[in-house]
């Protein structure tokens, strides 16, 4: 796969392998992510998408393989390592502490402190209000435990956290799965905005319409292996579905297999 614009990939994951007790969850996968690109990662349940991105976000160590950021090899062994490299992750489970307010969650693990090491609540509130004014101006419940917020509001807290810490690489694992239609639109809008600001976004989604709406390129995984990476403009939804289910690239499908898919 050549670069869309000849630039160095923001992220290059080379020949990544992860296995759990003999099961190859990720089996030699290589993908690239470019600045300003939304790269969708799709596949059925257990295809290995989440495990693959966890190696980039620091939640899972690789058995073998190399991760390059800006062309340089990096070692990502913990969420902190990932964050130091500008990788922020929005997890399917949101990774918010429900009992803590939006401000506390924004800065979870990276709290601002005063000279004496005390939490600088005012500075954190100020930063949170500023970022929310940009991302979700209607957001008002800064001091309520996030358990009391709607799915969309919670998602904006998670996204605000990523944006505030100057993420260059954003991983979104099913960002709209728990949201209603209006909130989904809001998140899609946000993804386009972040893309236009030059972030590289890896999007995991079960929603093929989300994928076709937002992604520039689509990588398909099946049973831990990469089926292939295609440009969105060059494939149809059916062809991508075929990759997900049968594991064959558009040119490789036989007409009977194609017929089966529609059966």
């Amino acid at each position: 796969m050549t670069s869309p614009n000849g630039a160095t990939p923001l992220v290059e994951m080379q020949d990544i392998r992860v296995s759990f007790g003999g099961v190859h969850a990720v089996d030699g996968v290589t993908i690239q992510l470019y600045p300003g690109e939304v790269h969708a990662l799709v596949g059925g349940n257990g295809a290995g998408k989440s495990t693959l991105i966890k190696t980039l976000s620091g939640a899972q160590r690789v058995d073998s393989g190399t991760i390059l950021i800006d062309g340089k090899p990096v070692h990502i062994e913990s969420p902190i390592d990932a964050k130091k490299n500008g990788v922020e992750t929005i997890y399917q489970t949101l990774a918010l502490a429900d009992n803590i307010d939006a401000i506390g969650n924004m800065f979870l693990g990276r709290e601002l402190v005063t000279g004496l090491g005390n939490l600088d609540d005012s500075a954190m509130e100020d930063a949170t209000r500023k970022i929310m004014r940009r991302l979700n101006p209607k957001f008002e419940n800064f001091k309520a435990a996030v358990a009391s917020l709607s799915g969309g509001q919670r998602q904006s807290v998670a996204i605000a956290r990523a944006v505030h810490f100057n993420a260059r690489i954003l991983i979104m694992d099913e960002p709209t799965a728990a949201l209603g239609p209006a909130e989904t639109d809001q998140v899609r809008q946000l993804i386009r905005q972040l893309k236009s600001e030059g972030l590289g976004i890896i999007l995991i989604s079960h929603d093929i319409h989300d994928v076709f709406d937002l992604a520039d390129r689509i990588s398909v995984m099946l049973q831990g292996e990469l089926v292939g990476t295609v440009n969105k403009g060059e494939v149809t939804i059916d062809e991508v579905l075929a990759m997900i289910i049968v594991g064959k690239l558009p040119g490789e499908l036989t007409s009977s297999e194609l017929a089966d898919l529609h059966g």
Partner: protein
Amino acid sequence: MSLTEDTTSTEYEAEQGIDAQSGLVPDQAGRRWPGTGLKSLELDTRLFGMIVGLLVIWIGFHFLSGGTFLTPRNLWNLTVQTSVVAIMATGMVLIIVSRNIDLSVGSMLGFVGMAMALLQAEILPKLIGFDQWYTWIIVLVAGMLMGAILGLLQGVVVAYAAVPSFIVTLGGLLIWRGLAWVLASGRTIAPMDSTFQLLGGGARGSVGGTLSWVIGVVACAGIVFLLFNGRRRRVKFSFRVRPMWADIALGVLGCSVVLVSVWFLNRYFMPEGLARQYAERNGITWPDGGLDIPFGIANPVLIAIATALVVSFIATRRRFGRYIFAIGGNPEAAALGGIKTKRTVAMTFMLMGLLVGLAAAVQIARLNSATSGLGTLSELYVIAAAVIGGTSLAGGIGTIFGAVLGALVMQSLQSGMVLVGIETALQDVVVGVVLVVAVAADVVYRRRQTS
């Protein structure tokens, strides 16, 4: 039934109204506060409810006991009796918030208390002689260190070996109790060092009337400073601030509570014998009508208050405290946020142990002796105080001051029942019932808050 439904729907609509309003004008005025009246005080309604509950208990017992409960003498004793449980309850809040439990604190208090007693009564006298002015410092530091090490030991097993804290500390409950017995072969160790005894209160172990007033005034200055400083910071960032009247009302309320408490406690005077000794020591001639010399606030009470302030500060203003709450709310999120969850949990147990050491010092100083049964069952009172004070056993929720109030509620019930003359067996029944009812009420309250 229909009444309840009506109330809920009105509340719901009111909430929606505020949301819609603020959604349209996001933070525009910067200063406007939604809602008026009591809401502006931003009172913690649960804490407020507990204070009301406490007052009901006090007034109830006052009448039932024929006017002996709300007396300076009784309340002074109540504050002293509450201290030991209150000191440990502050740490227990953090343990429970982190989704753990510590059943070993009573036994640990016995073990550490026994060790401290032996150190000052049998070991140190051989090394440095009896009644050195600094004996108490060595003993106190050694005891707190010992508690911290025992706590850390349990915490490491809980956090790194992933053994449930219920089991680890149940083991601790048996182990520390057994070791307390082994240490002194079941003997009672007494008396304590004469300076060390001052940690436990009594006539000499109280700060006297004048110093009590000074402490009260300093506390008031602290309250005013905190309110003022909080307001200044919010204005600086142009956040909404409470209306000025609300801040003033809070200040007046806080200072009144402090000063009235000091005034009331200062009305507990020394009995004539003690007062005469005091007069002699201070070269005061004994007047005909006698002398009213107040005890003042007892040292253990000051220790408990200082502990509550420090632990509360750690819980709300330090990263460590924030991490404990994050772990209790969502351990996975905390770990993904880069928090060292295992280390934090181990440290929480260490802090608990340190506080047990402090409580043990106060306890043996107060009793002026240590037995191998010291602290038996106090883990249950400590846990009950934390839970009555609003700490959720599911983790993530709890306040230090709630737990201190919880300890005060428990102790008030016990003292009150003694005054009223209820037999011991029935006292346990009442405390048990109150514990369950208080938590049930809290569960209902919380469910209504979230729905």
